[in-house]
């Protein structure tokens, strides 16, 4: 996988647009089972990322990802800032400048473990990990862009019947059941936007 400068900028703009255009939806999801700030927070964070263009895309892919992560950490505001920001920063730490698919598989695995540590959470607790973990499995299994995007969307849907164990939604106990996890939704939007730009081809 080789991303030139134009592709890197396209990737950043697509990631940002995916959450900014769905900010109201994310806020509505968060109002149901959280504090209702997820859409606004993610919009602010990715707005700040966009503001670092065009210089951001001049950086190598790893440096660009680390910068995106740090910007999200500093600007998002909620717990999502450190969680999503850590994911991007660890991807940047783990990826070479010209990653092969195997590099991406290994880097996403590391990044997911960092998110688990940051949130002291595991899959199954109605968090973004419920999207990241199954999507990473599809990536590792050789799935193409369509399969990855489909899994991301389905995985977010699968959080709806889950009981929240972590975060503000856990205060609601069983009332958290029946609502999609906002963090899973934003993760699925970001993944959908990323694979659309990266256009993975199945490796097997």
């Amino acid at each position: 996988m080789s991303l030139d400068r134009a592709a890197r900028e396209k990737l950043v703009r697509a990631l940002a647009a995916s959450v900014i255009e769905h900010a109201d939806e994310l806020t509505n999801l968060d109002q149901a089972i959280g504090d209702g700030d997820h859409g606004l927070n993610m919009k602010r964070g990715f707005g700040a990322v966009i503001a670092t263009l065009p210089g951001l895309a001049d950086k190598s892919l790893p440096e660009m990802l680390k910068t995106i992560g740090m910007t999200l950490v500093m600007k998002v505001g909620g717990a999502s800032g450190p969680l999503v920001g850590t994911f991007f920063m660890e991807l940047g730490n783990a990826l070479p400048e010209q990653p092969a698919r195997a590099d991406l598989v290994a880097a996403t695995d590391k990044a997911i473990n960092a998110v688990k540590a940051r949130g002291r959470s595991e899959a199954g607790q109605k968090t973004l990990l419920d999207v990241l973990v199954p999507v990473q499995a599809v990536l590792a299994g050789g799935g193409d862009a369509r399969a990855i995007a489909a899994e991301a969307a389905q995985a977010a849907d699968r959080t709806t019947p889950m009981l929240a164990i972590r975060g503000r939604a856990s205060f609601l106990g069983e009332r958290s059941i029946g609502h999609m996890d906002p963090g899973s939704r934003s993760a699925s939007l970001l993944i959908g936007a990323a694979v659309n730009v990266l256009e993975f081809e199945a490796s097997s």
Partner: protein
Amino acid sequence: MNSSNARNVGIVIVSHSPKIAEGAADMVRQMVGNAVPLAWTGGDVDGGLGTNVAGILEAIETAWSPAGVAVLVDLGGAETNSEMAVEMLPEDRRARVVICNAPVVEGAVIAATESSGGSPLAAVKRSAEEFYA
């Protein structure tokens, strides 16, 4: 007080609400005066309810003491952002900042009271955490 003010453990209050953070800091000051370094932070970068890493880093800097800093937080994001801020500190400072598992208002007052007597960081943290244990 058995030590000069600036050498006592510092107290940082982190709340989603700047009003709560400031109010808790007022309660600490009422209890211990200027006996402990104290700082508060609250709100997201736009001033809405939330917490932000830069604000937390700044508060830790303001309340810095060679004896360390005890951070009191309210809900989830305040804790996650505080942990992130601690990791971003220079390495020699990282081990001297602790996040207390205690209610933000009560914990801050108790921790500051313990600190005002010159107690070390571990004792300050323990005092806040044991009050409701």
